[in-house]
């Protein structure tokens, strides 16, 4: 274990997400941990069955995370990629291997509370073996100046009979420019649940997310849920892709986006394709404002239209 003095600003910046990040600092809590302070590794905790290794490179790190066969932990593996600077480049190359029959959760926090010209890039590879339960949650905070450029790319392979849950959340603060690309390859009998939530709050915020699931194994199943709101000139594009390429596979893409204020734009581009005659792929999308009846119900409880809208956005983007 390496003791860590982690920047307080980064810790505090995630409190809005109701996350007590101190629980995840090395020496606290029970889970494995890897903390990055800009491009320096500031703490690593390993636990039985989980190997964490980090190697610093010029603008970031290569992180290897190996969950050994049969490992099961309730406590999440915590990855904190914080930057307490206004500018700079942080590049992360995580390589995650979850061996067969393992059951783990990974909680990643990417917090850049002072970002004003900061670039964060990730290029991740995930390999999930057979019969695994694997949950990956990534929560972002990019400060209040819309000053981050964030571009994560991830390729994920999900083995036979495994359940993979992917959660991405960027709902607090102002996101800045965000481009996310996720490709998930689902093997036989695997189950994929991928949920992405984002909130653009001004004209400097532009969020583009492409989440793709390729159902390559027989009876593989997936649901992509994309939820977004754009306010005061913010722009969100959600691009949900599902391909049914194997017998009896079943996929669904759902996209809900709310547009608030002049100049805001929400776009949804579900792309579905079935190449096997026994597969089934569907999509649904709704864009615009909340149903008037919902607003009226909340206003009848004394909330203003703005307060009612805020409550509904919070509900839609609930962590």
């Amino acid at each position, binding site marked *: 274990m390496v003791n860590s003095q982690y920047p307080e600003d980064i810790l505090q910046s995630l409190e809005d997400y109701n996350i007590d990040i101190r629980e995840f600092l090395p020496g606290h809590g029970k889970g494995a941990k890897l903390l990055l302070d800009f491009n320096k590794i500031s703490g690593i905790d390993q636990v039985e069955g989980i190997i964490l290794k980090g190697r610093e490179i010029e603008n970031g790190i290569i992180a290897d995370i190996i969950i050994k066969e049969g490992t099961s932990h309730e406590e999440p593996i915590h990855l904190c990629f914080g930057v307490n600077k206004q500018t700079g480049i942080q590049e992360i190359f995580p390589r995650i291997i979850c061996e067969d029959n393992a059951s783990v959760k990974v909680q990643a926090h990417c917090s850049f509370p002072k970002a004003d010209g900061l670039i964060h890039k990730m290029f991740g590879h995930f390999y999930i073996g057979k019969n695994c339960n694997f949950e990956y949650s990534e929560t972002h905070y990019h400060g209040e100046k819309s000053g981050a450029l964030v571009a994560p790319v991830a390729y994920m392979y999900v083995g036979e009979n495994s359940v993979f849950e992917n959660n991405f959340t960027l709902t607090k603060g102002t996101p800045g420019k965000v481009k996310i690309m996720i490709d998930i390859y689902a093997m036989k009998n695997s189950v994929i649940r991928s949920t992405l939530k984002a909130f653009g709050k001004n004209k400097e915020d532009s969020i583009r997310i492409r989440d793709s699931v390729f159902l390559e194994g027989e009876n593989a199943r997936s649901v992509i849920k994309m939820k977004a709101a754009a306010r005061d000139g913010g722009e969100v594009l959600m691009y949900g892709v599902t391909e049914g390429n194997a017998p009896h596979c079943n996929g669904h893409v759902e996209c809900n986006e709310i547009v608030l204020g002049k100049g805001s734009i929400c776009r949804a581009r579900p792309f579905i394709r079935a190449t096997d005659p026994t597969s089934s792929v569907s999509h649904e999308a709704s864009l615009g404002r909340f149903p008037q009846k919902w607003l009226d119900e909340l206003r009848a409880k004394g909330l203003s239209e703005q307060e009612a809208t805020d409550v509904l956005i919070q*509900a839609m983007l609930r962590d």
Partner: protein
Amino acid sequence: MLLEIEHVSIPTDDQKRMIIDDVSFGVKEGSIHAIIGPNGSGKSTLAYAIMGIENYIISNGKIKFDGNDISQKSVTERAKLGITLAWQEPARIDGLSVFQYVSLGIKDRKNLKEKVTEALEIVNLEPNLYLNRFIDESLSGGERKRIELAASIAMKPRLIILDEPDSGLDVIIVEDFLNIFNRIKELDMTILLITHREDIGMVADYGTLLWRGTHLLTDEFPKVMLQYCKKAGLKDFCKRALFKNGSKCFDDDYIERIFREEGV
């Protein structure tokens, strides 16, 4: 009167027809006042207009609350004055917990959990089982209605408009709802009960009969009920309804005579 409806008319969207036509009546503070009438008589429309919902604008008349004209006030302003509406089919907002939803209208945020718990208990929902649940598809229609009612009660309004609270509920559950209405009344809240089920109305002190958008009668509930049955030609039903729970309102002979006089 806590609520006064004075010559209120509400047109259809295309303004070609009146859904509510020159209706006037009053609602006494502390009472349960039922608005009854067959489907399509304009009961829910009137309820939404009293709440100030956008698409239910009155073209004539006034709505007064506590002596003040509130006809031009917004939904939010009316809610802040102490009026609320429990919806016939409340929405399922799946990211909101029951606790968050019920607490939305509570002004004094001190001891919030206590207040929410109390409201849930009034509607016979076990707080420990419901506080952390979400307002989603896992709730039955009856549970959702109770939560809506709890959220209304938690506001401590002076007037709760209940829009067809019985719709889609089993008979056994309806009985439970009647007890809940009486508990709300004990808490010094006035209830305006919109229903087309006369057995639900039996819990009311007063009633107003609407018929094809017009006001026929406002009086003690049994009298309004009798008029409704006469109008609809429901003699046998009238006898059953008015003798329900042993609370004899009119004797058999009286009802026979009234119906005979009406030529029914």
